[in-house]
Every structure is written in C-alpha cells, then in structure tokens.
C-alpha cells in the first residue's frame, strides 16, 4: 500500500504498574507530514514517542510503524528512524564529529560514509566550526543541534523529536526551528512533542493536543483555533487579586470569559469591540491587550488549564 501511514495507532495504551500514562490514543502520521504532540508536563508525550521509537512496548491497543510491528521488528524499524530524545545522550568525552561517526556505526554505516555524512550534517546544523571540539563545553542549543544532526545520520524516513527546544533561549530555539523547517521542506517526516504552542504553530502541519494520556483535539493549528477558540482574545488585567468578581461584570461581552489567576481572557471575534464594551461598563482595567487566538487558548478551553505551568 503506497499511502499506508508511517505511524498507525489505534487505542494505544501505556501503563506503568497501575498508572496509565497513555490512555487509548488513535494517531495516523503520513509520509511528508510534520506532526506534533502538544501537551503539558506528564501528558504522556514521551511515553508515546518511546513506543513509536520501539524502545517501550505498548501495554495495549495496536501500533504499526512503517507498516511493521514494533515489538517483533524493533531493530529493523529503528534502523529507519531518527531519534532526538528529550534527555541528552551525547558522549561528552568524544568530539562533535566522533559523536556522529560512532553513532553512525550503530546503524552499520561504513566508516568512510559516516565521516562524509558527519561533515555534511555538521554543516547543516551550523556546527562545522566545532567539528573537532569536545562536546562537553558546547552550549545547550549546540548540543541540541548536534543531537538532531546525529539523528539524521542514517537518512531516516521518520524523525522523532521529543521536546527539541525545551530549555533553550529564544535565539537558540529559532535556530533549531529554522533547521527543522528546512528538513520539513526536504520532505522528511517529522514527529515532535512540545509544550510550546508557538513551536507547534510554527512547525506542525497537524497536531494532537494531549492531556493526561488522552487526545483532546486534533487538526491543523488553524483548524484547532477555529474550532475551539474565537478569532481574537482580549486580555484584561486589574491591579487586584480577586478577579472572580469580574465574571458577572463582564457577562455578555464576547463569547466566553476565562478567569486566570493573574488576568482575564475575553474570547471575541472582534477584540476591539469587546474592549470598547468593557470601557462602556465603567470598568477600568490596568492593562488591555487584544491579540489573535493561539493554541494556548485552545488548550485552556479544552482542559481548563494553561499549557506551561509557571
């Protein structure tokens, strides 16, 4: 079958003892797609990725990767995957180049080919100037890019990236995004997890929103926003603590009001009109901001919680 999905999961379950980390999810990822798992800490993103990466057998449900069975054909499937794990696994004792060539050997790639690829890949992730340096002193962003380069050494059909930019500063993150964007353009199938909604919006053609082991929504970033949020959001801050009293005072403005600990969100098609309505009711917020809806709002609406707990 030519358009068999690269990842095909039905009712996929992962339990650790009594605890259910992944609770019956259905996922299809097709060739050439950039697919995301968006969800907060503990949603089950890594557990799902590890099952897809054939290092953690599913507890229940069905899972096919590249048309094969991950339990029976693990080594064969892993030979065609590229994995950038959430936790760093570079060897700090080796040089940047050696980290790639040694890894290439795991895949049975001949030494000469490994050296050529290492040079190309280091150029691709803009680390060619550090090729002969040890890994230990590299910055977090550089290590991440090296891990991505390493994951590409076997020319994988499917690249799994578990939180590729978590812990990086904005500039380092943009560098990673740009490289991933290039990969996507080359037609490499990407599957990534993130708890940054801007990352999901930037990189994913399609994504699922995960919460407590379940998929709570699925679609393109745009579809999700259209389906689960309004076009615009009015953010109001009042210089006081008890924001609940405003629920009543704001009733009828916009389509929906969310009260967060530090601010109130008014969901409306026209944010400016909503702001004017607030003003007309003699309420005087200390700050007023109109912005477009984002996946953060989708998540908040679906789960009642914010994505990044801070």
């Amino acid at each position, binding site marked *: *079958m030519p358009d*068999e999905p690269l990842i095909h999961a039905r009712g996929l379950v992962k339990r*650790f003892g009594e605890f259910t980390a992944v609770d019956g999810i259905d996922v299809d990822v097709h060739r050439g797609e950039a697919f995301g798992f968006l969800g907060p800490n503990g949603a089950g993103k890594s557990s799902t990725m*590890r099952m897809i*990466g054939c*290092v*953690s*057998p599913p507890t229940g449900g069905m899972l096919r990767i*590249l*048309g*094969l069975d991950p339990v029976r*054909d693990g*080594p*064969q499937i*892993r*030979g*065609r*995957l590229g*994995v950038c*794990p959430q*936790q*760093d*696994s*570079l*060897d*700090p*004792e*080796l040089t940047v180049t*050696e980290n790639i060539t*040694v*890894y290439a*050997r*795991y*895949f*049975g*790639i*001949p030494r000469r*080919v490994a050296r050529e690829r290492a040079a190309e890949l280091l150029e691709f992730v803009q680390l060619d100037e550090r090729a002969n340096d040890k890994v230990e002193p590299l910055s977090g962003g550089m290590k991440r890019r090296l891990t991505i380069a390493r994951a590409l050494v*076997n*020319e994988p059909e499917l690249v799994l990236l578990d939180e590729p930019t978590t812990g990086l500063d904005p500039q380092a993150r943009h560098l990673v995004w740009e490289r991933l964007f290039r990969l996507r353009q080359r037609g490499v199938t990407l599957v990534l997890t993130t708890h940054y909604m801007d990352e999901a919006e930037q990189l994913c053609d399609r994504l699922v929103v995960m919460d407590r082991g379940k998929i709570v929504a699925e679609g393109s970033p745009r579809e999700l926003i259209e389906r689960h949020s309004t076009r615009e959001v009015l953010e109001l801050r009042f210089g006081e603590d008890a924001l609940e009293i405003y629920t009543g005072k704001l009733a009828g403005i916009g389509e929906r009001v969310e009260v967060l600990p530090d601010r109130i969100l008014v969901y409306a098609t026209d944010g400016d009109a909503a702001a004017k309505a607030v003003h007309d009711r003699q309420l005087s917020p200390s700050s007023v901001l109109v912005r477009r809806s984002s996946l953060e709002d989708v998540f908040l609406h679906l789960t009642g919680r914010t994505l990044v707990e801070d």
Partner: protein
Amino acid sequence: MTATQVIAPGWTASPSPLPVFEHRLAGYRRIWRGSVFSTFLLPVLFLLGMGISVGAFVNRAGELGVPYLDYIAPGLLASTALQVAIGETTWPVMSAFSWIRTYHAMRASPLRPKDLVGGETLFVSLRVGMSAVGFLIVMILFGTVHSWWGVAALPVALVVGAAVAGPVLAFAATIKSDNMFALLYRFAVIPMTLFAGVFFPVAEMPLVARWIAYASPLWHGVELCRAATLGWPPLLPVAAHVAYLAVWAIVGYLLACSRFAKKLTD
C-alpha cells in the same frame, strides 16, 4: 509493504557488538597513554612491595618450593585481570545507563541488548589482555617466569576477565545506585583478592573458607596462572578449571543480556 523491502538504504549490515566496542575504544583513545603507563607501573609496585619486601619475612624455610615473589606474581596477574574487568564493568556501565546515557542512544538504533553486552565484553577483553601482557613482561623482567608455558597466562587472564565481566555487567544493570559497587568490592572483590590463593595456599585455610575460595572464579584463574608461569601441574585438570570459568562467563553473559534488556525497556 513486505518485510523484505524495508532494509535501510545503502547498507544491509545486521546489528552486532562491534559498534559498541568501537564506541568504547573511541573514548579509551583519549586516555590510553596514562592507562598503558599504569599497566606497567602497577605490577612493578606490586612485585616490589609484596613479593620482595613481604617475601623477605615469609617462606623462609622454602615451604612454597619457589621464592615468594615467584609464587605470588602469577596470582597477582590473575587478580589484576579481575580488577581490570571489574573496573570496566562497574562505574562506566552505570554511567552509560544513567549519567551519559550512551546505552539509551544505542537503544534507539538497531542494536540489541546482547550487542551492548557483547561489545562491553569485547572491550573488557582488550583491557584485560593489555594489562596481562604488561604484567607478564614485568614478571619476565623480574625473573619470575620459569617455563615457556608462561604465555598461557594470557588466555587465562582473558577467561578470568570474561568470567567476572558477565556477572558484574548484570549486577551494574540491576542496581539503582552506584553505592552498591562499594558492597561488591567489600564482599566479593577484596575477599577474593585476599583469600583466593593469591598470597598464600588456600589449603592453609579452614575447610569452609577453602570451599568458598574454590567456588570463586579468581582461585581457578590463580591456579592456572601459577601452573603456567611456574610450570607446575595445576590442582585440577586444566580443562576443569577452564570449564568452571566458562560457566561463570556464559551464565554471566546470559544474565547480563536479560538485565540489560529489562533496564532498557519500560
């Protein structure tokens, strides 16, 4: 899509222990100079310290049949093989699981747990082999090797290395904290080194202690090494000593494979 179509593009090598061995070698290349130096320095210190100075006090009546230095040198060779094998399979293995996470990187490739165990065992053999060659050269320079059979001490050292590498790999993959390695040293390595016939004949000990020594892999290595360098017949037939060590190696290897698989699958 059928299973035959899905071989990775460009190469078809099946997973093997070799890449794991190569990774360890790449790390070792950074420290080999210091390591080779101590390979020669340690036996010199051992032989001077233990053999010559202690030897002046014991064995005055010649009850061992050979100078004390010549008696303990092959024992020290066997115990060095044990020490090196244990050194390479404790903290470095813990690190590859939990700190540097090398094994998790390997796990994302076609490599299987048995390739990891096999690669580590190969590397242990290399390190034990290097140390044994160094030790034997020093022994020859000290005039403690009485027979051409002495070269047989090298394969014996490799077998001793393999006999302890497997079980210790399994142990390292089982424990939760590296504090447990201190127990391994306290209750296995040090007692073996002291009481498994390296420094004095096991026959001098009470019966129970003697049987514990017989059960330890080191005693068999010591017997074989001593037989080789002194040209003595060993207590048991050579094949029996080797077979006993081989059982340790094979059972240890299988145990390590299953512990590695468990640790790397959740």
